[in-house]
C-alpha cells in the first residue's frame, strides 16, 4: 500500500540533450551529402557480326575527334586545344551547308556539315588516353549540343531548355539530335 501511494520519482531529463547531441554528431560525421551525378551515355548493342558495309556517309558530315595516348587532340586533322573544342563543335553542327535547316545560324560552309540532322561526331581514342581527358572531350561535345539546344529553346519558347516540358524538350532535341559515334579504340601511338 505504501508503495502505491508513493509518488513516482521524476527522471532527470537533463542529460537527454547530451545523448541526442552524441547521436547527432555521429550522423553528422557519417552523412555523405554528395548526390551521384555524371554524364549519361548509351552504348551500342553488342553484335559479333558487325555490319560489313555501313551506310555511306559523306566525309564532310563527320566531325572526327582523335585523342592520342599523349592526351593531344586532333580535330578534323588539326591539332586543337580542349578549350576550343566546344566552339568548333558548335560551328560544325550549326553549319547548315545545304541550307535545309531554317533555324541554323551557321556559316554555311560547303566543306562542313549539311544540316544538324546529318552531322555526326566521331570520337576515336587511344587505349592510352587518360580517362580525365576522355571525360573532358565527352563533356565538351555534350556542352556543344546543349548550347545549341539552349539557344533554340530560348528562341522558340523563350525559356531555358531545362524548364521545358518533356514534349518541348523532345522537339528541341530533334532540332539538334545528338549523334556521337565512338569507334573501337585504336592504337594511335604517340
Amino acid at each position, binding site marked *: 500500500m505504501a508503495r502505491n501511494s508513493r509518488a513516482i520519482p521524476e527522471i532527470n531529463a537533463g542529460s537527454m540533450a547530451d545523448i541526442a547531441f552524441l547521436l547527432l554528431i555521429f550522423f553528422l560525421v557519417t552523412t555523405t551529402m554528395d548526390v551521384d551525378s*555524371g554524364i549519361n551515355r548509351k552504348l551500342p548493342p553488342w553484335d559479333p557480326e558487325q555490319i560489313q558495309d555501313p551506310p555511306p556517309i559523306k566525309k564532310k558530315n563527320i566531325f572526327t575527334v582523335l585523342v592520342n595516348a599523349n592526351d593531344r587532340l586532333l580535330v578534323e586533322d588539326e591539332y586543337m586545344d580542349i578549350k576550343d573544342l566546344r566552339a568548333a563543335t558548335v560551328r560544325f553542327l550549326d553549319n547548315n551547308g545545304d541550307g535545309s535547316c531554317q533555324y541554323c545560324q551557321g556559316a554555311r560552309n560547303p566543306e562542313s556539315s549539311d544540316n544538324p540532322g546529318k552531322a555526326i561526331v566521331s570520337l576515336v581514342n587511344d587505349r592510352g588516353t587518360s580517362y580525365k581527358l576522355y571525360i573532358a572531350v565527352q563533356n565538351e561535345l555534350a556542352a556543344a549540343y546543349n548550347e545549341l539546344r539552349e539557344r533554340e529553346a530560348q528562341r522558340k519558347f523563350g525559356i531555358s531548355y531545362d524548364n521545358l516540358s518533356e514534349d518541348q524538350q523532345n522537339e528541341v532535341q530533334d532540332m539538334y539530335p545528338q549523334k556521337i559515334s565512338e569507334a573501337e579504340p585504336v592504337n594511335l601511338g604517340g
Partner: protein
Amino acid sequence: MSKFKKKTGGGTPAISTASLPDIVFMLLFFFMVTTVMREVTLLVENIKPNATEIKKLERKSLVTYIYVGKPKKQYIPQVGSEPRVQLNDAFARVNEIQQYVITEREAINEAERPLMTVSIKADEDVKMGLITDIKQELRKANTLKINYSTRKGEVYGD
C-alpha cells in the same frame, strides 16, 4: 530606495534550456533521414574527373556501381599498383563484370530491368584501355545505359 535595489540585484534570468533536446532531436532526425551509409569500402583510389554537363542519377535501386582506379596503398603488395576494377567489396577481373552485371540485373524486378544503369566510377588517372574493356563487357551483358560518374567543375582547370 529598496525598489531600485531589487532591480539591480536581480541579474540576468536563466534561459530555459528545456527545448534544447527538441531542437537537437529535430536536427538528429534530419541527419538520420538524409544519411546514406557507404555500402562499399573503397579499395581503389577514386578521384573523379570534372565535368559540367552532368545529370543526376535517379532511382538508386536501379544503379550498379563499378569502381576503377589504382589500388590503395595498403593493397599494393597483394594486387600491384596497376589500375584495377572493384565490384562490391573485392577486386575483380574485367571478365567478371559481365556475370556481376547480369546477377545485379536479375535482382531488379522485370518491368524495371531496361532502366538499369551502370555507373562507372573511375579515377581520372585510369587509361581508356581499361575503361573500353569494361564498356565492351557491359555491351556483351546487354547493359547499355551507363553513366560516367563525375564531379561538378570546369574540365580544363589545370
